[in-house]
């Protein structure tokens, strides 16, 4: 292995590579409940050329390569299940371009959400991107590669739908441009009217290539942003409430959540509604439209709006820090969730399952769903907090999450950023021809199987042909 280490030093320099145990310890785990696994090396490239050279080295040495953003997916996607090299992308963090009129940005593959947010605030205050409710150190490339969501997902779809172009280092070492940048200098379209090749990389969880540049759509940043919080105690009404709200076509974001603590939130389902405007009148108009849309539920006394002046600052935070607070309720600061993508009409069934699992496994629950693309679907998070110093509790959380994923699949949902166990569950149920198509794509792009092995292991399934 020494020669690999020397080769990596030759590519990225002494300070860009490590095989020291304390650093390997750190890179062997993520904040979720999965078992750690040690890599052999960690490298931190600064350029696409360095990434390419590392890929060529890994291919030559047949050593696994695990691309990593900030490692906050919680589902072990950057745990090097078969060892090898963890490719920490965070030094590739430049914002290369913002096209104000075209409303897109081009960033390097390790650029964080917080960096882009701050840059836009300072230099392009009329623009914003779809910020996820994750720590600001999480990276844009990782987020789109696992079909993440953000503050603008209700309006515009998954954050991966907002990609306008990619630069990818293929597992065979070629540097490939996807979308309009493959034809010219502009990064305005990831696919149309070309075949949309971004699908070869988005959702593949780093098993088909390494994203070194991302083009990302930006959206108008309105001067005012406000929030309302509607509550109901009848879970069966939630889908129709959401249907009425999405019919308005004027809400920035819609989150549905419930949790047993603090008592303020006990026994109710909460729908947080965000809206924006360039004038106070625009904001108030939207607020009134929202209230009127839900009037029937108020008249029947089944739902109402909370007085929330004292909660507004918390609710308007971007990203929100409530998740961190939830993680520490049982002390020990751990939390993980299963977040299947599903239909809003299934909300009541999922909500019941959360409570059932929490009781069955004796764990603390919370749930927050985010509407996607005007209500065509939603991400339903089944979240459990745990104490990192309590292996038994972590085991119960893992079992509860596994059962949650099986339930989601039974309900026709799609697991989001599934861990390797959940990927296996998914592949087992996948249409065989679809699975075969995935296998062929994987074989074509990564013939040596070096990319994030242990994830999307389609090669383990017999061909259906």
């Amino acid at each position, binding site marked *: 292995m020494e020669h690999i280490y020397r080769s990596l030093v030759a590519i990225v320099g002494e300070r860009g590579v490590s095989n020291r145990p304390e650093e390997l310890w750190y890179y062997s785990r993520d904040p979720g409940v999965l078992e750690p696994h040690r890599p052999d090396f960690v490298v931190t490239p600064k350029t696409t050329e360095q990434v390419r050279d590392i890929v060529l080295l890994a291919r030559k040495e047949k050593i696994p390569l695990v691309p990593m953003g900030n490692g906050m997916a919680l589902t072990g996607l950057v745990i090097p299940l078969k060892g090898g090299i963890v490719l920490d992308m965070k030094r590739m963090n430049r914002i290369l371009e913002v096209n104000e009129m075209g409303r897109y940005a081009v960033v390097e593959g390790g650029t964080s959400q917080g960096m882009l947010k701050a840059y836009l605030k300072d230099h392009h205050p009329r623009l914003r991107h779809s910020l996820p409710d994750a720590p600001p150190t999480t990276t844009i490339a990782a987020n789109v590669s696992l079909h993440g969501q953000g503050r603008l997902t209700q309006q515009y779809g998954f954050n991966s739908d907002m990609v306008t172009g990619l630069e990818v280092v293929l597992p065979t070492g070629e540097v490939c441009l996807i979308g309009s940048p493959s034809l010219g200098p502009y990064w305005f379209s990831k696919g149309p009217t070309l075949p949309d090749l971004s699908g070869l990389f988005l959702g593949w969880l780093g098993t088909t290539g390494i994203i070194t540049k991302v083009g990302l759509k930006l959206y108008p940043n309105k001067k005012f942003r406000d929030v309302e919080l509607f*509550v*109901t*105690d009848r879970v069966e009404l939630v889908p129709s409430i959401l249907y009425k709200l999405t019919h308005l076509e004027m809400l920035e974001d819609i989150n549905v959540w419930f949790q047993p603590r*603090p*008592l*303020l*939130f*006990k*026994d*109710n389902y909460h729908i947080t509604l965000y809206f924006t405007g360039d004038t*106070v009148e625009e904001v108030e108009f939207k*607020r*009134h439209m929202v*209230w009127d849309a839900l*009037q029937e*539920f*108020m008249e029947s*006394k*089944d*739902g*109402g*709006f*909370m*007085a929330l*002046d*004292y909660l507004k600052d918390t609710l308007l935070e971007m990203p929100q820090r409530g998740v961190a607070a939830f993680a520490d309720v049982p002390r020990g600061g751990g939390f993980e969730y299963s977040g299947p993508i599903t239909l809003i009409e299934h909300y009541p069934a999922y909500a019941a399952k959360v409570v059932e699992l929490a009781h069955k496994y004796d764990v603390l629950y919370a749930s927050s769903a985010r509407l996607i693309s005007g209500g065509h679907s939603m991400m339903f998070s089944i979240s459990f907090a745990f104490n990192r110093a309590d292996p038994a509790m972590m085991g119960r959380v893992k079992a509860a999450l596994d059962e949650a994923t099986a339930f989601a699949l039974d309900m026709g949902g799609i697991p989001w950023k599934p861990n390797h166990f959940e990927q296996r569950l998914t592949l087992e149920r996948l249409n065989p021809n679809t699975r075969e198509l995935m296998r062929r794509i994987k074989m074509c792009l990564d013939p040596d199987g070096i990319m994030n092995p242990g994830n999307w292991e389609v090669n383990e399934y017999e061909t259906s042909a």
Partner: protein
Amino acid sequence: MALQFNENLCLTCPTVDCLEKCQYLAFGPGEAAQEMRKLIQGEDCRLLTECRTCYACEEYCRRGNHPFYLISERREEKGIYTAPRPITRQWYNMTAMQGKPLIGAVGERALSLCFIPLLGELGRGKLFEEVEAASVFGPEFMCPAVHSHFAKMSVIKERLPQVIANFVKLGVKEVICLHDECYGTFTSIAPAYGIEVPFTPVYYMDYLLTRLDELKDAIRPLGIKVAYQRPCSNRLIPQKHRLVREILDRIGAVLMERTYQDEQALCCGEIIRTIAGWRLADDIQGRNLEDMVQSGAEYCVFNCPACQTTLSAKVRAKGLKPVHLIDLCKMALGEKTKED
């Protein structure tokens, strides 16, 4: 535990001021008396569905009866709740006692912060230096009057004796109530239900006046014009309303005359938004704030922290500065600046 309500007082009332003066319901000739008769006899009537819970009828009644408590009792008897069920439930849950009150070095006197965090900061400084260490906070010491907005008098009857017992356990002889509604609860709701209060509730404005007299050499008259936002709870203790003017006089602030003050005061509107919708709430807040502006006031002075939280941003948007009455006193004592 029953409401001590003298039906004859109402059935023989020549004016029916409680309803005739209502700012939200208009009655035809003789209709108000009919409504009250129906209410007393447990019949369906407009009051049960249209009352906006502003508490003002408690003040308008000149005969010492409790029309608002009766309306709320009848509503609960008939299951006619004011607010959406989940909102009512939320208030019930969030104010439940959890056995984790914050209790200072309480002797014979306690300073009640109710269950309102904002009162903690208000109850500090020179004005409260003798009592701030004796502060108590938490649902265990919270006046449950808010549940009357939701026609849940049963919650008040269940919790108020517990709150009183919690104070008694501390061995206090006096409780200084920083929340207007706490004083209203101990001196209006408790006697209306025959609940004994075995300590002396002290209204914070009485306490402020005493302290301002003691600190009069330190007072620098503010020379500012103010409008006053009277809270709903103050309707339970109308005899204390005059203290606002006395305090403002002491600190050199001028209370501007305006349409919506004293008996005609409009509430902050937030509970009304919850139970009646945005149109009425916006109307109330719009008229109220415009009235403050027209009066020439520079400051909007609050008594209740909930009103202050609700209206502060809107007051600022109108060019007025929101401030609690206690902070205004602190400004006069040089503990706070006008910019604070």
